[in-house]
């Protein structure tokens, strides 16, 4: 097959991913690595590096608005992003050192686990936090944001911060190891574990992702794992697709799209497992 077909196919596939990601309320980064590694000829190293760049650029593009609107909070994000960015370096180094087949099998298992988390995890608009823990108080992880839907200021505080730091450490390892965007894990960790309001969790998750993926992306870049012919069409596709997705959002039934995403993830996870076992 001619070489130029692949970047065009990549652009078309990632454009569709960008649309679906917005409609299903998931990050494009979580779809990219499973789908591209399963159905395109690029080595997993290049796909993971491109996956990090896709997740990073999407997060960087969204963060200014979220920060300006108060829906991403720096005091909440900074300690968690710091831990995640350290462990994502470890994840990236381990991922590049392990044999490809081992990473492929682990990726397959991780994708199936992500599908399960997405299917099972609940959400809580305004979790009740009776008392903030000592660490969150010391780090100033509390505040007020304006909720446009409620039309009022909403106060928030968090608890279980030490456990939250451990969880974000684990999320960082996964992000670096597999090149996955980690919104699927960040949001439940902030919302259900630490008790941050849902909207603040979603906004802050994107900010954390932009920092965590930055450190892992540098590791891949320095190891020669970045191919512009994979990265640039993917970035363009996902970002343009996300714009179209945002326009389609008001008239699309989200639950149907979410089921479609779960089905695709299960398919891609199974394909990754089979590839890992050489089948």
């Amino acid at each position: 097959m001619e070489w130029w077909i692949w970047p065009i196919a990549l652009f078309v596939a990632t454009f569709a991913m960008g649309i679906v990601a917005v409609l299903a309320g998931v990050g494009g980064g979580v779809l990219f690595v499973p789908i591209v590694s399963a159905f395109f000829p690029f080595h997993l190293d290049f796909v993971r590096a491109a996956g990090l760049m896709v997740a990073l650029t999407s997060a960087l593009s969204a963060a200014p608005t979220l920060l300006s609107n108060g829906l991403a909070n720096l005091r909440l994000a900074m300690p968690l992003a710091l831990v995640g960015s350290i462990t994502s370096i470890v994840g990236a180094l381990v991922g590049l050192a392990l044999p490809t087949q081992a990473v492929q099998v682990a990726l397959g298992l991780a994708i199936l686990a992500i599908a399960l988390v997405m299917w099972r995890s609940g959400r809580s608009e305004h979790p009740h936090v009776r008392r903030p823990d000592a660490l969150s108080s010391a780090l100033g992880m509390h505040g007020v944001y304006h909720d446009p839907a409620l039309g009022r200021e909403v106060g928030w505080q968090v608890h279980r911060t030490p456990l939250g730091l451990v969880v974000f450490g684990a999320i960082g390892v996964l992000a670096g190891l597999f090149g996955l965007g980690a919104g699927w894990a960040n949001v439940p960790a902030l919302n259900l574990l630490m008790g941050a309001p849902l909207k603040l969790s979603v906004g802050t998750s994107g900010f954390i992702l932009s920092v965590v993926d930055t450190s892992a992306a540098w590791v891949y870049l320095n190891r020669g794992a970045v191919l512009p012919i994979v990265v640039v069409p993917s970035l363009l596709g996902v970002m343009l697709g996300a714009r179209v997705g945002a326009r389609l959002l008001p008239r699309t039934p989200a639950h149907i799209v979410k089921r479609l995403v779960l089905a695709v993830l299960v398919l891609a996870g199974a394909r990754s497992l089979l590839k890992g076992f050489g089948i």
Partner: protein
Amino acid sequence: MREHEIYARWLAAGTRIAFAVLLATFLVYMLGLLEPLVSPRELARLWALPADKFVAATGAPTGWRWLGFLGKGDYLNFIGVAALASISIVCYARMIPTLPKLQARLAAIQVAVLLVAAVL
């Protein structure tokens, strides 16, 4: 809060510039205006290799050695890629003077971690 505004402003400008550079350099690459280190046809034979074997087969630069290959169409794109990966470092560093002492220390450690990642 002031730090949010500063971070948001620098991030928005940085992302816009980096993305524009990436698109412009990719156009140069795809139009063949600068000869690439690895031609696209050759690349299609090699992109199924792991990164270390690809580097060994092509002599592709690792670390910051890509700076010496900016005359090549493919590695010219690394300016935009590196810019995207540097934005958070710049924004954190810019925000430090506006933060209270504890948060400023956290931000300084974060900058150090990202710089370590950039040279690993």
